[in-house]
């Protein structure tokens, strides 16, 4: 078999691009400059890998599928939160260096790798799925496609945490103890809107999970690589449920007579 490079690579246009990559750890760091030969179709992650293979064997980067499906290679490219594997070089301005730095809302581990364990702790805090009894003897349920469309949209989430990275409540105000962030507001919405679920998470949303901090600036929706309507389809409906349950005068009246 002739090598793929001979068939495809060599005759494609190539150019040298300057990369400014943040290198460092918990104690601090700085941008370092690397020159990378870029050929047609390359994405930012390819360039990082080239640097790693040829110039800096120990450059730390987290990645897995290289296809926008696992959500591991989140970073800030020219200041924008993006997946490195889905950012094509030809979509970036050619006349200046490409800056790559780790997500800034999470503590640094090393180079482009951050400590995202807070997200895993937040998820555990949310009450798990609790289905109603099966509809049929074989343990299955009847659910119509139109009833699961919305939940399926939320379940497309690849947990890249870019929405968490960009959310100013976390990024600028560091409300990590009081606010679970857009990813987990949406995760809660997916459970609450699941046709089979019987749990109630509305009080948790209002209290310990801090949905009130979200002032719907939609930054999360803008950076979502799966194009999920995080704000409009998940967070706003959850805010409405909180309002219905806790602030609606009629409901409050009911609650006086019929405590939960």
């Amino acid at each position, binding site marked *: 078999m002739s090598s793929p490079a001979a*068939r495809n690579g060599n005759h494609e246009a190539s150019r040298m691009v300057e990369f400014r990559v943040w290198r460092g750890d918990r104690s601090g760091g700085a941008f370092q400059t690397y020159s990378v030969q870029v050929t047609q179709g390359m994405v930012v992650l390819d360039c990082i890998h080239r640097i790693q293979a040829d110039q800096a064997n120990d*450059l*730390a980067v987290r990645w897995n599928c*290289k296809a*926008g499906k*696992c959500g591991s290679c989140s970073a800030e490219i020219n200041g924008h939160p993006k997946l490195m594997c889905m950012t094509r070089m030809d979509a970036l301005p050619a006349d200046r260096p490409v800056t790559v730095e780790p997500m800034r809302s999470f503590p640094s581990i090393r180079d482009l790798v951050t400590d*995202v364990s807070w997200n895993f702790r937040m998820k555990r805090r949310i009450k798990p799925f609790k289905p109603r009894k099966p509809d049929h003897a074989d343990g*299955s349920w009847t659910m119509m496609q139109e009833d699961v469309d919305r939940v399926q949209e939320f379940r497309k989430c690849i947990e890249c945490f870019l929405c968490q990275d960009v959310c100013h409540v976390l990024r600028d105000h560091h409300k990590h103890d009081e606010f679970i962030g857009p990813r987990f507001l949406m995760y809660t919405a997916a459970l609450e809107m699941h046709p089979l679920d019987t749990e109630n998470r509305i009080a948790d949303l209002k209290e310990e999970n801090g949905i009130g901090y979200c002032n719907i600036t939609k930054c999360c929706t803008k950076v979502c690589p799966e194009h999920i309507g995080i704000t409009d389809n998940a967070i706003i409906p959850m805010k409405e449920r909180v309002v219905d349950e806790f602030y609606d005068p009629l409901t409050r009246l009911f609650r006086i007579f019929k405590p939960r």
Partner: protein
Amino acid sequence: MSLPDSFIVHEHDVLVIGAGGAGLRAAIEASAAGVKVGVICKSLLGKAHTVMAEGGMAAAMGNVDDRDGWETHFADTMRGGQYLNNPVMAEHHAKEAPDRVRELEAWGAVFDRTKDGRILQRNFGGHRYPRLAHVGDRTGLELIRTLQDHGIHQGMEVFMEMTVVSLLKSGGRVNGALGYDRERGRMHVWKAKAVVLATGGIGKAFRITSNSWEGTGDGHALAYHAGAELMDMEFVQFHPTGMVWPPSVRGLLVTEGVRGEGGVLRNSEGKRFMFDDVPDAYKNQVAKDEEEGWRYVCGDKNANRPPELLTRDHVARCINREIKAGRGSPHGGVFLDIAWIKEKLPNAGAHIQRKLPSMYHQFKQLAGVDITTERMEVGPTTHYVMGGVLVNGDTQESSVPGLFAAGEVAAGLHGANRLGGNSLSDLIVFGKLAGEHAAKYAKANRAVEIDAAEVAAKTAALEEPFARRTGENPYAIQSQLQDSMQDLVGIVRTHDEMERAIGIIEDLKKRAKNVAVSGHREYNPGWHTAIDLGCLLTVSESIARSAIDRKESRGAQFRDDFPKKDDACSTFNMVCRKAADGSMEVSRRPLPPMRAELKAVIEKMK
């Protein structure tokens, strides 16, 4: 001698290595049995290669076609595997997959629905009826997220971004594992009464692969060096449709679901070449013309499948043949066309985007191709290894007491070729069995002390690359290995080329002993690559040696020097084990006997 304080020591009843579908399912099952469970993920939780599975999980629920049942699924799996499968495993799989799928629904999975509100099932290569429960083309994500979100509430302890480098043994039994964490580079010892390997595949042994960096055959190598046997390693599945352009995404998977939804393969002359070559075993199951093929896609129960939905080994070879004959696409593949269905369907564009959203996204973003209006270019890519740890078909236990294996790292279910969709179901069926029996083993056996001297020796070897000022670049060795396997042990094989590959592997083994890495131990990918190299070299050798000794073409193995299937080779599996002198010993193991009633099922379904 006790372990030095620098080691972090953990203790569990059952240790699961790997946190994809099989590992998480095993951990859930073992936790449910009431034992203490630890799960080690090489990456973050929920990022394992399972997320890449697209098309669906095969289970004969009969929701779309009620003629389906376990017998048909069993017979399809055996036929696809060219009867080298372990029939006991194929039986468990066909019978238990429907319950495992329904269980996912009970844990929160949201599958696509039929018109009457049941789990929808789609067509796939080699499956007689529409059988794959799915969620668009992101079924693997749904599977792993469901198991993850359920699992984290079951009491298991999860270790993220840690890699196991060796299993520990005492008195012939597995009693734990040694590994490191990526973040700080600290050494860990996990004491365990039973260990479940669920480490996935070996794709990174080849240049063009759909696998991520993790697919370095860790579990295969761990088991082999612990004294277990590797079976069927010559059978590496080259998925027929990987992306071929741009170069940086070469090998990335294009789901078989595209063909399941009506996508057709054409060469540069515009011809649907798959009609030209239909294997005898499938002659009476394939559409006679394009019109019948389309009717099948639309759900006509009287129609036969289009030839694009033949088994993966066959489709990959046909594509390879077209490319070699000069009838390929501009970038060295062939054309896969789903856009053509607009001739048949109103709103075809929206239909394609709804059925294949991530394929639409992937091509649009990475190749600048709109699959609703344009053809894709695709070619074969290393995808899956049918071979793996030889296990007991009922318990998933290997020949080493206390060591279990499930999912891609285990052998037996798929024989010489795996059917699409049989992998996700494999994970949940055998993940459960492995978890169940590992828990049982842990309850019946006491913990055995770790041998500190063994740990010390193994750790010292790991640290050597840091001590060398100059030496080999681990990336360069990995790259050379991948090129050699791709060129010499790929889709078309010959004795002489594979012998050359063995020579190269022997040489690379020596060079790998002399790698040097720079920097320190914290999150150092150069060091990790150096460690993974050992596993890659072991599995590569095992693939090449098994392939040399199977002197025939069958399933995923095609030998240019033995292009025909040989009945004399239909009676054994190839098995590799580590000999006393440390060399790799290859032997032929007679197929396990098949019960008469299973034989009758196969006859009935012929």
